[in-house]
């Protein structure tokens, strides 16, 4: 078949125009409560965006099945893809904010994109849930312990909380520690806070602090510096795909130092990238979701997930117990949506001011990851007690993530 170049160009232009429209979400229905967000639905870190989208969808299905909120059904009014790229997140969030039908917002996945949009969100004033960005300044612009942005609430593990948790483990066991973080907002704050935490607990500890860029294919230089400092353990703050590169690089250098990773690194791409070589890797993750005897609300959430998506890559290799990374990829979106709907219910309205007032009065709301409590001065919920240490171990020929702190 002959296709003229002009026709080919026209088709390509049309395709590009359609692609640039992103994912417009579902068709709008009258009389619904609409939420909107931009997240990493595609790209190398899409386990986060796809995960929290699934969490939101599960929550919406649960709420709508029970009759909705204020007599209305909830729907995703706008859902755009930013691939974890800050510039794209800004463009997308602008479009979301321009849609005045949307009454509830969610931050993008990751600290970089979220930090890029959070001032726009704060200026806009609509209530916003932050499912995954860990940098404390997303919520507390002046740092942990200062006044939060009035309309932004976090459901992720804040870096300062995780840093305290990991620093206490590392300082207890080791004197010389290698610390490697990705050069993003998440990685930099995480690395600095862990280092500060270790030094606070053990002032004579030797911490060798290095950084890398996301998607680097070779980390030899950083690992040589850690090795040269005679570090007894390596702590990495980063995401799963990069963690796989680091682990392989360590093995290639015959580096047998114990490896600790942050919650972001305990994600599916890590095991997919290194397979059984992940055995022995330790780190922090959500405690409740992978407990041996899970709470009823966790069981309900997991059953709903299994019924809709099966035991897929986000679930992990054990059909009975999910990977704790589901707490960060899926459950934070679920909990965020449930808490927002609860606030609308208590406020009797979706008006931003009334919703924020209700959110600030959230108390004892039992979620999948923790029991939520917000006040005008405290917009985070996950604390050190909601985390556990895990280790990859080979059990019955299968690689499993085992909770080691009970």
């Amino acid at each position, binding site marked *: 078949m002959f296709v003229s170049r002009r026709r080919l160009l026209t088709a390509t232009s049309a395709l590009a125009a359609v692609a640039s429209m992103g994912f417009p979400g579902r068709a709008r229905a009258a009389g619904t409560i609409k939420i909107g967000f931009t997240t990493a639905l*595609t*790209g*190398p870190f899409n386990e986060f965006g796809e995960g929290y989208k699934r969490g939101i969808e599960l929550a919406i299905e649960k709420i709508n099945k029970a009759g909705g909120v204020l007599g209305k059904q909830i729907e995703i009014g706008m859902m755009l893809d930013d691939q974890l790229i800050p510039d794209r997140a800004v463009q997308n969030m602008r479009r979301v904010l321009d849609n005045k039908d949307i009454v509830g917002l969610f931050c993008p996945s990751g600290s970089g994109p979220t930090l890029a949009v959070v001032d726009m969100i704060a200026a806009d004033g609509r209530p916003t849930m932050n499912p995954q960005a860990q940098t404390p300044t997303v919520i507390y612009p002046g740092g942990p312990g200062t006044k939060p942005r009035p309309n932004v609430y976090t459901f992720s593990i804040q870096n300062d909380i995780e840093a305290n948790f990991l620093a206490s483990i590392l300082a207890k066991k080791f004197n010389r520690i290698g610390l490697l973080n990705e050069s993003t907002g998440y990685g930099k704050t995480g690395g600095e806070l862990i280092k500060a935490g270790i030094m606070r607990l053990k002032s004579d500890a030797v911490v060798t602090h290095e950084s890398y860029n996301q998607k680097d*294919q070779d980390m030899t*230089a950083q690992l040589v510096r850690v090795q040269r400092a005679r570090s007894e353990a390596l702590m990495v703050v980063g995401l799963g795909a990069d963690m796989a590169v680091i682990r392989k690089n360590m093995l*290639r*250098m015959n580096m047998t130092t114990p490896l600790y990773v942050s919650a972001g690194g305990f994600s599916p791409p890590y095991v997919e990238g290194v397979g059984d070589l992940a055995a022995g890797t330790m780190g922090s993750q959500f405690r409740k979701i992978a407990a041996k005897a899970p709470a009823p609300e966790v069981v309900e959430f997991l059953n709903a997930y299994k019924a809709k998506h099966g035991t897929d890559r986000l679930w992990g290799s054990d059909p009975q117990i999910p990977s704790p990374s589901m707490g960060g990829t899926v459950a934070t979106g679920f909990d965020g949506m449930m808490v927002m709907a609860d606030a609308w219910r208590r406020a009797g309205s979706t008006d931003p001011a009334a919703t924020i007032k209700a959110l600030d009065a959230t108390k004892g709301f039992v979620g999948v990851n923790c029991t939520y409590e917000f006040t005008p001065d405290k917009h985070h919920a996950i604390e050190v007690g909601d985390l556990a240490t895990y280790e990859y171990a080979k059990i019955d020929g299968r690689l499993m993530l085992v909770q080691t702190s009970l």
Partner: protein
Amino acid sequence: MEDFLTLLLAGISVGAVYGLIAIGLNLTFWTTKTMNFGQGSVMMLCAMLTATMIARGWPQVLSILAALAVIVVLMVFTETYTVRPALKIEGSMGWAVSTLGVGIVLQGFASLWFGSQALAFPDIIFSAIDDVVVFGVHVSLQYIAVLILALALVVVFELLVRGTVWGRAMRAVSMDADLASVIGIPVRVVVLGSYIASGVLAGVSGILVAQIGGTVDPAFGFELVIFGFVAAVLGGMGSTTGALAGGIVAGVLQQMVGGYISSAAQHGMAFALLILILVVRPQGLFGQREIVKV
């Protein structure tokens, strides 16, 4: 000493791959004064196809050959439909946009076909834990394999260019395409061949780098092409030896700066080198100063 050797070997191995990419860029620069800015996506596609076919149970060698065959077809398309039409307009830089466009479309298709998450790239011949001990230093067999393969490819390529009729034809086209056409050299076929060879080198580079990193995703390759470009300019555009030397210098310098000065300065090093060479010796280490008679 152990640190130095580890950094040196990693730098030479990664640098040799930069060199391969640079040679691929040089090839099309010779024949058409164009470069394929979608080269990173070619690397990505070849690595992703290879990983997918091996994961589906195909033999490794067959998977690599099949992936390279797809790349050959792709390069025929790229040259025929995106570069050649742009070159019909005197002085046009349309080829830069169109080759970049092909790269972006390939990224989109890869996301659609393979998913956008990182795919695990299987160990070929050696795994990350295979090593040999040389003078008490553990040396990764993966690095050695990458280095040997890259060097062998450069040698074979150089022999082909210098010792075969097609190689001589390519050099003739690079000097004066019109004159080459007058004396009966099929310029169009030579140009097409240069694009195919460039794509194959990019594909092999993609497989070699994916082997080191262990994963490959649709965004893979973009940064590597930039380093390949730095290697090409550093060595001197058009010089095969220069491309390899430029790649190895860039790779080793990156590792040494990262290992002994600062890992944060590692990436900027290649670009600092690029600026320096453009200021001090614009023709590159092995390039010849171009003299134009006016």
